[in-house]
């Protein structure tokens, strides 16, 4: 998938302009079976994409647990709702317009409206921006799940104090005005694709993008009132581990499903998605042991996620052994990023910037280092003699940072002018579960009376 990143040489893409025709499967040996002229539906590919899509959808509830366990018990439902709600509003928005803007033919900057309201999105493998061997409608669903979780990721930076309705408005619009264009640049034949940027499953589109929006949101909403005053400890670490476990599980759909087929490329992405977090987990644990003698569970969960984030752009482009290395390397900046962030006044509550922003950036850049043509059939990286690829990766990361940063900022300022972003002091201290949602997560003793 993301075939524009797999075609080679990137230069030719621009010259020929024959964008869609160039979708060649990653693994040359397997590509023979495919005749680009009339790609037929393949039941194996379809089976894998059906389950991959379900796996990615599961990541949003998984994120709810990862985030929900990290907050205090008075805010857990609010935090979880911030993920779940994306499944409704962002999901519907994707069907209405987001899909078309991201993945229909348009210009270098944005797609058109030809697929808006799923017009022409049918059961055949035709009509999508790239040749498929799976039903077009399934491709649309797969991409939908990416948009949904990207929007939900942002919430980690502003939990425990952002008001729910402005948040809801923000991510719903953000998914159209930020996510869709950036996805178009990289996966919809836009300018980054034409430049040859490699992003297998969303290092820039998903993680850098969400990480930067999270940073901006944390700044615009402002810190929690008790930030730095008291210890804001996770109320349920097993939930964090549950979230991490389910995220890893779902991420196989995310990365390996990004091959859009059940082939060697998918298997490669699978293996890197298994091995990179293993590398991160080992290094993270050793860093914990060295620093304090105590390998933490929250650290392990965080390390797993960082490894998954870092390997996302690289998944189908690097060798399995290099994936362990990439995961191991990526542990370091995020590990120390967390520590440094804790000393600043930035209340990025659940460290979206350090995990997704830094992890995604490191992954995107290392993709330009470790990419190996003998594995991906597309392009080599710096280590294999192609320093140009590294520069392209730098440009892609910077583009995502600037665009997501600026537009997210403007959007939040507009919403903030209409309604307050930050919960009132009372609501915040009472906890957002009761003040925003009228519910408590855990009720044990009695003391409540039915009214109506």
């Amino acid at each position, binding site marked *: 998938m993301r075939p524009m990143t797999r075609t080679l040489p990137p230069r030719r893409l621009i010259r020929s302009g024959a964008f869609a025709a160039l979708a060649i499967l990653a693994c040359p040996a397997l590509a023979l079976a495919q005749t680009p002229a009339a790609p037929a539906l393949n039941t194996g590919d379809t089976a894998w994409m059906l389950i991959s899509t379900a796996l990615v959808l599961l990541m949003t509830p998984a994120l709810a647990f990862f985030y929900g366990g990290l907050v205090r018990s008075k805010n857990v439902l609010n935090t979880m709702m911030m993920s779940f709600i994306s499944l409704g509003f962002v999901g519907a928005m994707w069907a209405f317009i987001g899909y078309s803007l991201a993945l229909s033919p348009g210009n270098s900057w944005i797609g058109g409206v030809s697929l808006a309201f799923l017009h022409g999105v049918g059961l055949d493998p035709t009509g999508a921006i790239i040749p498929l061997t799976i039903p077009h409608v399934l491709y649309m669903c797969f991409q939908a799940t990416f948009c949904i979780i990207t929007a939900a990721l942002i919430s980690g930076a502003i939990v425990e104090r952002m008001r729910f309705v402005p948040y809801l408005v923000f991510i719903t619009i953000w998914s159209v005005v930020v996510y869709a264009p950036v996805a178009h640049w990289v996966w919809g034949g836009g300018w980054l694709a034409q430049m040859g940027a490699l992003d297998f499953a969303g290092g820039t589109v998903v993680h850098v993008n969400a990480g930067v929006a999270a940073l901006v949101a944390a700044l615009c909403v402002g810190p929690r009132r008790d930030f730095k005053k*008291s210890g804001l400890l996770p109320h349920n670490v097993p939930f964090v581990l549950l979230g991490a476990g389910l995220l890893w599980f779902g991420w196989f759909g995310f990365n390996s499903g990004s091959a859009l087929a059940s082939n060697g490329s998918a298997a490669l992405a699978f293996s890197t998605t298994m091995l990179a977090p293993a590398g991160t987990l080992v290094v993270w644990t050793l860093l914990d042991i060295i620093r304090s003698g105590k390998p933490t569970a929250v650290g392990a969960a965080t390390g797993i996620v960082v490894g998954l984030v870092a390997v996302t752009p690289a998944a189908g482009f690097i060798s399995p052994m290099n994936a362990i290395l990439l995961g191991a390397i990526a542990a370091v900046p995020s590990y120390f990023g967390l520590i440094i962030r804790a000393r600043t006044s930035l209340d990025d509550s659940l460290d979206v910037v350090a995990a997704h922003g830094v992890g995604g950036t490191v992954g995107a850049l290392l993709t330009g280092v470790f990419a190996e043509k003998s594995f991906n059939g597309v392009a080599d990286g710096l280590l294999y003699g192609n320093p140009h690829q590294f520069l392209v990766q730098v440009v892609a990361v910077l583009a995502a940072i600037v665009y997501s940063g600026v537009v997210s900022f403007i959007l939040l300022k507009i919403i903030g002018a209409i309604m307050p972003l930050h919960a009132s002091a009372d609501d915040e*201290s009472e906890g957002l579960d*009761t003040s925003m949602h*009228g*519910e408590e997560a855990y009720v044990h003793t009695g*003391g*409540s*009376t*039915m*009214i109506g």
Partner: protein
Amino acid sequence: MKLVKSIVRPNKVDDVRDALEKLSIPGMTVTEVRGHGRQKGHTAIYRGKEYNVSLLPKVEIEVVVSDDVVDEVIAAIVTAARTGEIGDGRVFVLPVDHGYNIRTGERDMV
């Protein structure tokens, strides 16, 4: 010797603890409780049914101190725990006959 039993808002625990530490009060025991008073609870809606959740989360802080510092301790707690809004809580002072330190077995050594 007195047992000073305070019921405070959950997010005031750290402030009270800091205030007590400034007075060099060595120990305290904290319990999660739920309370209701003038503060009337909130309305919860679960699956279409409205409930008045009258018992709200509070924290009870118990600290046993010698008679001479009681007033100081109470003042410190009240200052640290007050927001001025309904629901701030109560401080009750109860007489204590003796205290024992389990580790040393000594009596009246709070």
